[in-house]
Each structure stands twice: as structure tokens, then as C-alpha cells.
């Protein structure tokens, strides 16, 4: 069951440049999407989310874009910093409280100084 997929297992970016992490989903009933950041031996840390009624949400250096027709979302980090190096997970839900999150497999981002 691959309802949420992150096709790039890893991404390497130079400090100061843009990082773009991608995520695809297959279930058109998903209507709330989240990005989490995870360091080794820690739990996922919430970064940013977007509802399906929007196509963009911005929070500081982080912007999430949603293309519903393509069932695709992306996370942009600008400018990238070495401290951003972590595994990034996208997750999707049906939005209502108490609904499970379906996670992608994660993308390991490495930001080089």
C-alpha cells in the first residue's frame, strides 16, 4: 500500500541554496497534508501543514505547495542551513480530528556547509 510516496530517498544541497522535497499521493480523499522533520533517535517534529483548499502555505523559510490535480506536494526550504539536515516525512490525512496519518517513506536531506 503506497498511498503516500517520497521517491527521492536522499537529497544533498549546498548551504544557502533551496531544498525541494517532493511527495506524491494516490488517494484523492486526503485533504490535509503535513511535513515532519526527524533527527535520529527522536520523534517526528511537526514543520508545516496545508489544507486541500489551499495551494500554498508559508512559514518562515518553509513553504509547502500543493497541486491537487497532480496529487503532488512539495516542501521548499530557503535558504537551506546545515541544521536542516534530517529526514523529512510527508504525511496525509482525511483532515478530521482523530484520523490516522499516512506517511511517506522519508527523504534524507543533507545540507553541506
Amino acid at each position: 500500500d503506497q498511498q503516500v510516496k517520497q521517491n527521492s530517498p536522499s537529497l544533498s544541497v549546498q548551504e544557502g541554496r533551496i531544498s525541494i522535497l517532493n511527495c506524491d499521493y494516490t488517494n484523492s480523499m486526503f485533504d490535509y497534508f503535513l511535513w515532519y522533520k526527524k533527527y535520529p533517535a527522536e520523534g517526528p517534529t511537526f514543520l508545516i501543514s496545508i489544507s486541500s483548499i489551499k495551494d500554498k502555505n508559508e512559514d518562515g523559510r518553509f513553504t509547502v505547495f500543493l497541486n491537487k490535480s497532480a496529487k503532488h506536494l512539495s516542501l521548499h526550504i530557503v535558504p537551506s542551513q546545515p541544521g536542516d539536515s534530517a529526514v523529512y516525512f510527508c504525511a496525509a490525512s482525511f483532515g478530521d480530528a482523530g484520523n490516522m496519518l499516512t506517511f511517506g517513506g522519508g527523504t534524507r536531506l543533507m545540507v553541506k556547509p
Partner: protein
Amino acid sequence: EPEVTQTPSHQVTQMGQEVILRCVPISNHLYFYWYRQILGQKVEFLVSFYNNEISEKSEIFDDQFSVERPDGSNFTLKIRSTKLEDSAMYFCASSEASGRVDTQYFGPGTRLTVL
């Protein structure tokens, strides 16, 4: 900033033994969740809990698993008879459940090793 806490950070047990993983959700949150991540695999949903009962569970959450909110602060996951394949990171999460969209906040996890 409020956070979800979990104990222990690492639990080692023998196959067939019972384990209880503990979580303290964020205090004003109403929904509680357990997820697990087997090494090298995706984070998988196990169960959600609201108003002292299970609201949703996955196929993974079979009769060997149970959850409980024994008091006003703790939320526990019990595995009655552990199997080797139960070895994983177990994450607790909680959400405020206000409005239509609902962000879940995760604890640091408990690493369960079944020998």
C-alpha cells in the same frame, strides 16, 4: 513549549513477555495515537483514542495490543505477548482536535527490542 513525553526510551524484553509503553500527551489535547516504525520502514499508524475509547485502529493493532488512559495524564500501549517482529520504535502522538484540520505532535519514541 508543551511536548509529548514517552518512557522508557529503550525497552528490551524476551519474546512472549508483556510490555507497557508509557506516554504523557500534551495536557490540553484530546486525541491520542500510537505509531510504530520498524527499522528501515515507514512510520505506521496503530491506533487512535478519544474519550476513553479507541476511535480507529489499523490491521497491525490485533488482540495482542491494547491501549489505556489509566489516569488524567498517562496513555499506555500494552503488548501482551511480544514477538520478534514487534521490535520497532513506538511513537506516541497527541492532537488538540479543534477545528477540521488537526495536527498531531509526536513524542521522542520508545525503542522496543524483542529478543
